[in-house]
């Protein structure tokens, strides 16, 4: 019964979305306020209906209603409650339902938080958002319906892939979707602006917080996925340039570019056409990712089951939305009033423009590498692979100049800057960076083989110190009394904090990326109980193995004591798990972070009496990766909480400024 309510709610939501797509648009073109207002109400109703459908599916999953096909295919009585809940988005149908739920959530958020938006822009934005909704709701109902019943209902289900029964994997998709789908708002704003034929600083101010929110969630989602890969796949890798990963990385790169170019539109009334284009492309990459992951056009470890019919449908949506938006852009962009912000090449704008060129080139490179095998095959050129070596040797070097610019960019003034003076202010960073290169070089024995690692560490040091110096200068740290710096720190706009956090976080990520790739040490062996293996200067002693039981698996669990110079550093408990349904073995690595790196142990099968196959790693600097990713996300949130960016800000900020009470509440 509840399942049918969910199904019916989804159908109603489609009807509401159709109304939301049409009525406000007509209202906006006629200037009819009542018609325009329909958008906000419809957006709220649409979300509530889809949320009911989402809850209905969750109910079916939690109560293990095996008369629902989706539950049969993805669940089992042995499945723990946590994974019954997260199992809602563990299947193709369920994850698509989550997709539309989040889409409508953002639609409602625009309606609720966008009270101060010009009514025309708001109506058109909501209408475009609903147009996207109509397509995906139809897809949900026709080709990917999670509410289909089976008759007769089987006694039990097929189970969920044990690899998916993991907190890391269970929770990162919602963040990814919040990111992916969140970019739909930027898209809707861009298309609405093109329909209106007006892009100005106010538009950029509206679009930025939404992009920032989506970017932050996407950052968390990508980092979560990398973390999951790092500890489940059991050999210390965290990024594979797999099509599914690339699918989330491309929109991230473009969203990053968009965040920065929107600043230029807002502050300097330049780069407007480009920014609108980026807003469309960012969501375009989300759609492309959805297509790649769900159509099976590129097989990948994580993608959902292959179904060409669904692929054709999503391809149709991709062409309709992206093609439509681009066509509108082609018609309207030439007549967009060119901004009047003039600037010289050496200026903040110039730096941000270079950032944009590099980010866009980076995204295009990832796209080229991801799609190239498909293109070659489609033109009859046979089958080739484009794997990590390609991306490492093309994408990574392409991004390195950006780190150089990033160190000095924030110090450049708008319009026209003095590069020499800016560089002078970060002299210390340059000195430390060069010292880092030299020290790293000698520390790794002066060998030429890992020259890039020394360079990478130097760039990371450059970016970290330069970002810190920029912040220190704003706070007059070490130049003024500490109390003065403290006062400045509190007064510093949150967006400035956000920028410093994000740039500093990126430096840590870069350091971890190079460090863990260049200096990982590993050892695979048959290890006797009591035997010690030394890896990366740490001694790993296998103390014993015991059998443990999980909710739906049994496991062998090893106990390792990790010591350094005779001092105990960590106790690790890696497991080899055997799931009941479906019967698949998985490894559960045990990891303990230190300042210098992760000690990482994996347990394999028995290799004789009292002897087990073990895999031991030392992954240098890996904890920095997660701290850095955390700082990126925190930077996003900090910036988002800046009252100048807060949605609906202009009016409130003005009110706050006149009030006696200081702002920031």
């Amino acid at each position, binding site marked *: 019964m509840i399942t049918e309510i969910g199904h019916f709610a989804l159908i109603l939501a489609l009807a509401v979305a159709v109304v939301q797509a049409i009525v406000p648009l007509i209202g906006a073109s006629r200037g009819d306020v009542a018609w325009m207002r329909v958008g906000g109400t419809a957006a709220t109703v649409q979300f509530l209906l889809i949320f009911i459908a989402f809850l209905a599916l969750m109910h079916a999953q939690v109560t293990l209603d095996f008369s629902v096909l989706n539950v049969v295919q993805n669940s089992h009585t042995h499945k723990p409650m946590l994974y019954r809940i997260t199992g809602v988005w563990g299947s193709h149908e369920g994850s698509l339902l989550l997709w539309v739920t989040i889409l409508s959530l953002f639609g409602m958020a625009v309606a609720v938080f966008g009270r101060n938006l010009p009514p025309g822009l708001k109506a058109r934005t909501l209408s475009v958002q609903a147009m996207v909704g109509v397509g995906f709701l139809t897809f949900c109902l026709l080709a990917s319906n999670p509410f289909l019943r089976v008759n007769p209902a089987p006694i039990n289900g097929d189970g969920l892939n044990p690899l998916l029964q993991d907190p890391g994997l269970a929770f990162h998709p919602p963040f990814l979707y919040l990111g992916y789908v969140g970019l739909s708002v930027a898209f809707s704003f861009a298309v609405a602006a093109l329909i209106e034929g007006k892009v100005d600083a106010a538009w950029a101010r509206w679009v930025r917080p939404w992009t920032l929110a989506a970017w932050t969630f996407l950052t968390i989602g990508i980092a979560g996925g990398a973390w999951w890969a790092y500890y489940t796949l059991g050999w210390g890798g965290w990024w594979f340039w797999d099509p599914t990963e690339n699918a989330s990385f491309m929109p991230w790169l473009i969203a990053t570019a968009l965040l920065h170019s929107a600043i230029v539109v807002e502050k300097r009334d330049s780069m407007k056409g480009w920014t609108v*284009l980026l807003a*469309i*492309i960012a969501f*375009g990459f989300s759609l492309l990712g959805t*297509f790649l992951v769900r*159509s*099976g*056009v*590129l*097989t990948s470890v994580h993608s959902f089951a*292959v179904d*060409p019919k669904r*692929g*054709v449908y999503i*391809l149709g949506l*991709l*062409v309709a939305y*992206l*093609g439509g938006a*681009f*066509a509108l*852009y*082609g018609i309207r*962009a*030439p007549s967009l009033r060119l901004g009047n912000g003039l600037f010289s090449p050496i200026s903040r704008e110039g730096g941000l423009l270079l950032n944009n060129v590099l980010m866009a080139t980076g995204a295009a490179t990832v796209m080229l590498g991801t*799609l190239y095998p*498909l*293109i070659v*095959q*489609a033109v009859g050129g*046979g*089958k080739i692979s484009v794997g990590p070596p390609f991306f490492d040797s093309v994408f990574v070097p392409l991004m390195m100049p950006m780190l150089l610019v990033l160190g000095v960019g924030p110090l450049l003034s708008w319009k026209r800057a003095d590069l020499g003076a800016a560089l002078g202010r970060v002299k210390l960073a340059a000195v430390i960076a060069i010292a880092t290169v030299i020290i790293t070089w000698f520390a790794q024995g002066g060998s030429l083989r890992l020259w890039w690692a020394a360079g990478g560490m130097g760039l990371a040091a450059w970016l970290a110190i330069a970002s810190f110096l920029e912040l220190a200068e704003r706070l007059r740290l070490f130049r003024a009394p500490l109390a003065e710096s403290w006062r400045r720190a509190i007064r510093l706009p949150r967006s400035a904090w956000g920028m410093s956090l994000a740039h500093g976080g990126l430096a840590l990520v870069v350091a971890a990326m190079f460090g863990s790739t260049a200096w990982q040490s590993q050892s695979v062996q048959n290890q006797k109980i009591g035997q010690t293996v030394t890896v990366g200067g740490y001694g790993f002693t296998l103390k014993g193995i015991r059998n443990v039981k999980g909710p739906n698996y049994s496991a062998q669990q090893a106990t390792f004591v990790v010591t350094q110079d005779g001092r105990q550093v960590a106790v690790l408990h890696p497991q080899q798990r055997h799931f009941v349904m479906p019967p698949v073995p998985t490894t559960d690595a045990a990891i303990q972070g230190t300042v210098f790196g992760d000690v990482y142990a994996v347990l394999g099968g028995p290799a004789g009496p009292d002897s087990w196959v073990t895999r031991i790693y030392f992954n240098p600097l890996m904890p920095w990766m997660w701290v850095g990713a955390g700082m990126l996300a925190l930077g996003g949130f900090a910036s988002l909480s800046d009252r100048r960016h807060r949605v609906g800000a202009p009016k409130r900020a003005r009110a706050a400024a006149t009030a006696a009470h200081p702002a920031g509440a």
Partner: protein
Amino acid sequence: MRRLVYLLPVIIVLGMAAFFYRGLHINPSIIPPVLVNKPAPPTDLPGLPGHKGLKTADLMGHVSVVDVFGSWCFACAEEHPTLVAISKTDVVPIYGIDWADKPADAIAWLKRHGNPYARIGMDPSPARTVVAWGVTGAPESFIIDRHGIIRYKRIGPITPDIWLHTMLPIVRELQQ
């Protein structure tokens, strides 16, 4: 001209969509064989106990089918009745390459499902011969002409339909 630049994104999207549409109709998990129309790789496998082994010379002078299987392979069991039926027609000899198997397992498996193979060569792990044949999974089968050249490769189980409409005509033509 300037307008055209602004329309570039639409053109790119439409072009990409065309590739995607084609891509949707290509099965990404099938790796195109490179060995078709090339001589069968050098093969010298000992026989499964109680069976004749398989050498390159055994493939000369007549048309044959070489089938890679294993007792651990679920899809091989699915294909097996078809092979047994083919072997009963005496149209073409089927030679087996038993991949990464324990002899006892293979013998028991053949006892249960029947034996369509005129020769069975054993290729235990690391299966150098299986790799030399460019095999990615079991079952895979090849049609070899009388000069020992591979003329056709089937990835996945042979179904009656595949046999009757694709493979048998090739065998007949090669036997002319």
